[in-house]
């Protein structure tokens, strides 16, 4: 087991003191170190937001993309290099606001990517507007008026979209979160963790106190086996939000990943995916005239002599 310090970068973390993101990143450091992953083979992909800064703080490769698009970047990375563990860190605005189309699409593919959502109910970095997970009628500090829109239920949406591993964690329970991250990263397929993340600066409703009072462990208090529960049961469970808020793994299945499906259609794919393929011999194309003629035979006409 590598030391968790090895996974920290030298960059000063400029989140607000007390921000829930500190809980998330320390769970991440520990998960990475307990899994002992090769730092070069882990790629964190993030969007824009407070959450989007995560990769710079971690000493594995990081791709800090544009707002809402970490998932599409992640897919391109994963599909072309199967060795990589690809982990997305997105804000709730990032993944469920501007990026919700991609969020839904990833579920359909079951690509082997882990999505960790920093769910703080606000758009942190743009000064506290309502994010898609903020409940209707709530007026957090940064809002001029109470929120007009109903919240998206991230867990329900992930289940509906087809993610094969769907969980919720809480930034202040780093032990539990660390385990969730490990399980999600090890899971083969699209995994999603909705992480309840207090934003001390802008969200004065969903605070640490708020969550501490409500959060309970799915598997502790109930007889909950995520590999066994039906999708509908998991969905129903995901609707629980109020006095009690469950955390843990809601649902888990092993299904063919996107990469495996591609592998069935392209024989060489799993062994030599795009990034591993040779494309030149001595500075010339790998395809010679004979190959060209074979591949494109339908386009070639032999001229009558």
């Amino acid at each position, binding site marked *: 087991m590598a030391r968790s310090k090895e996974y920290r970068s030298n960059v000063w973390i400029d989140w607000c003191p007390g921000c829930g993101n500190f809980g998330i990143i320390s769970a991440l450091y520990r998960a990475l170190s307990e899994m002992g992953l090769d730092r070069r083979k882990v790629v964190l992909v993030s969007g824009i937001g407070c959450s989007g800064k995560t990769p710079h703080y971690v000493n594995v490769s990081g791709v800090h993309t544009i707002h809402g698009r970490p998932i599409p970047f992640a897919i391109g990375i994963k599909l072309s290099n199967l060795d990589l563990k690809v982990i997305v860190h997105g804000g709730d605005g990032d993944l469920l606001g501007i990026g919700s189309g991609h969020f839904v699409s990833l579920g359909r593919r079951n690509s082997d990517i882990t999505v960790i959502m920093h769910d703080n109910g606000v758009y942190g970095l743009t000064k506290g507007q309502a994010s898609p997970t903020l409940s209707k009628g709530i007026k957090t500090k940064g809002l001029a008026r109470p929120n007009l829109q109903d919240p998206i239920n991230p867990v329900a949406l992930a289940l509906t979209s087809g993610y094969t591993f769907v969980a919720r964690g809480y930034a202040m329970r780093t032990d539990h979160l660390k385990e969730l991250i490990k399980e999600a990263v090890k899971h083969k397929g699209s995994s999603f963790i909705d992480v309840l993340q207090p934003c001390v600066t802008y969200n004065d409703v969903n605070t640490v106190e708020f969550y501490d009072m409500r959060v309970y462990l799915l598997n502790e208090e109930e007889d909950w086996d995520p590999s066994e529960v039906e999708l509908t049961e998991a969905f129903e469970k995901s609707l629980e939000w109020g006095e009690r808020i469950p955390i843990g793994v809601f649902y888990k299945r092993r299904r063919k990943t996107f990469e495996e499906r591609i592998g069935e259609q392209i024989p060489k794919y799993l062994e030599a995916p795009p990034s591993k393929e040779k494309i030149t011999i001595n500075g010339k194309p790998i395809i010679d005239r004979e190959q060209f003629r074979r*591949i494109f035979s339908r386009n070639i006409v032999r001229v009558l002599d």
Partner: protein
Amino acid sequence: MAVDELNFLIGGPQGAGLETTAQVLTFSLAHSGYWVISEREYHSNIRGRHSYIHFRVGRKRPLALTYPLDLLGAMDAETIFTHFKSLEENSYLVYDESSIDKTYKQIPSMEKHLKEILEMEIGEKTVGSIVEYLRSEKGVNTVGINFPKVLSRLSKEFDLSPSQASRYVSSILIGAVSGLMNLKEQSLRKALENRFGGRKKLMKQNLFLIKLVSDSVKEKHGTPIEMNPVRNQERELLVVSGNEIVAMGKLVAGVRYESYYPITPAADECFFLETLDLDSSLVVFQTEDEISAICSAIGAALTGTRSSTSTSGPGFSLMVEALGWAGMNEVPIVITYYQRGGPSTGQPTRGSQSDLLFSIFASHGEFPRIVLSSGDHLEAFKDSVMAFNLAEKYQVPVIHLLDKFLANSIVTMPIPELNLDITRGLVDEKTNAYKRFSLSENGISPRKFLGEEVMWYTGNEHDELGHVSENPDIRRKMYEKRMRKLRLMDKEISQEERAKYYGSEDADFLLVGWGSVKGVCLDAINHMNGAYLHVRFFSPFPRRRVSSILENFDSEKIIFVEHNYIGQLRKLFLMHRLNAGGSIVKYTGRPMYTNELIKGIKTILEKGKRKVVLELGP
């Protein structure tokens, strides 16, 4: 009276087999050694609207399409009403005798505006009276075929239902055309084999119909437009559309990741790649939208994969934000950009060259990019390879501009030379303390790929490691490092490659064009004493070379030829402090034809006009 060259057009409703007709004819002609160029015009519609394919066939390689026609093959009445004006003396019309009572009013698929024009011009005339008019007043040879009768012969012969038989109408046209041209049966057979593969029954039935029609046509009309035989230098010819040749180029270049969201006229390229039977693991990935297409292509590029995405205007408009990320992070990706008629959805299935300035300035902020375009199929092939080489060498996004005209043109051409260079740019070999964005002198920082080393990327301004930095000094240095590549590219990429000159030194005038107008410009100057400056790169712009060429011509003798309204290339010349003369533009969405271009050039040269707008073609 055998001929050396033939201009013809076949038309009919979308979805009725026109493409089969065209494909079989083209392959037959290629098999007999002729050179073909053809372009397809169609509506944004799946079935029923009028569509046509315009051909030029020659013993020598034809460069562009032109009017009037030597032959019009009409599958239906709408084709006749739409195209009869393109026929002149001694030309041929093939039509369905059973449709002679139709008036254009009975054709629901016909667009209102064309009906209004016909109303004014020909009133209530039937197909029959148009045919009669052509025959008697215009000297057109009319070749009537009773389609239903012919099809019922087929039904009987093979025991097909009428509706089954109606699907073979494409072969009636093949038969008629091949009869009049006296195409070799051997060539037709080869072409049908290619079209129908192992499906023997289909082969047989189509061949039956073709021969039936062909024989009867020959009997009545002889073989008046048989072409003089040709001895082609090539043993094999490639029959290929613009979309396909780009796909071929990409594959040769080593593309291993192509993402796309379906859009006309780009999707056929991706579809073609998908259908190939390859040894390699090329991923062709249909994403949920164009944003995802470009983002995932960028992601793939970061792993060292040659990756690209193909789209047209609406898709590119959505890619603009991520394009900037690629610019900021110096990611080599290739965006293959097929222009079509804009703005907005515009004319989705028609051609245009109106996205040049957009491509050059797309995305907020400033970063180096390469924007180039190809003028014909062979250029498109080579450029598809070069695009990847340059992208990796300079670590910039490359926008490869093409257009619908080229995409949907099918030509015969020799199999291109494959002995091309594949250069992958500077890659870091050291192991320790890798800095993705090292502040190098020429602006190029050695690459490494995700998986090989720990590295960071961000769309924010960043330091050498790729971490966010807002320090003004770092900002300036990184900005300048990126922009230095502009100068480097300008120095290293051959000026001759970027702008090509065609024609004699002492030409009377100079056409200046880009992209697919190349063919028609070359065709025009072959008929006049002109020269053609073909601009291939817009960024980095080959100012030196262009400037030295322009110096040889008076401003009144310089004519820009473009498919847009404002004269975008001309504007770019101005921006580079270059002389700019008159303009010939077209923006109806139809290609430029040699005959109208020549007329346009004369109007400018002889009448001193500054701008001519072309509008030929229905």
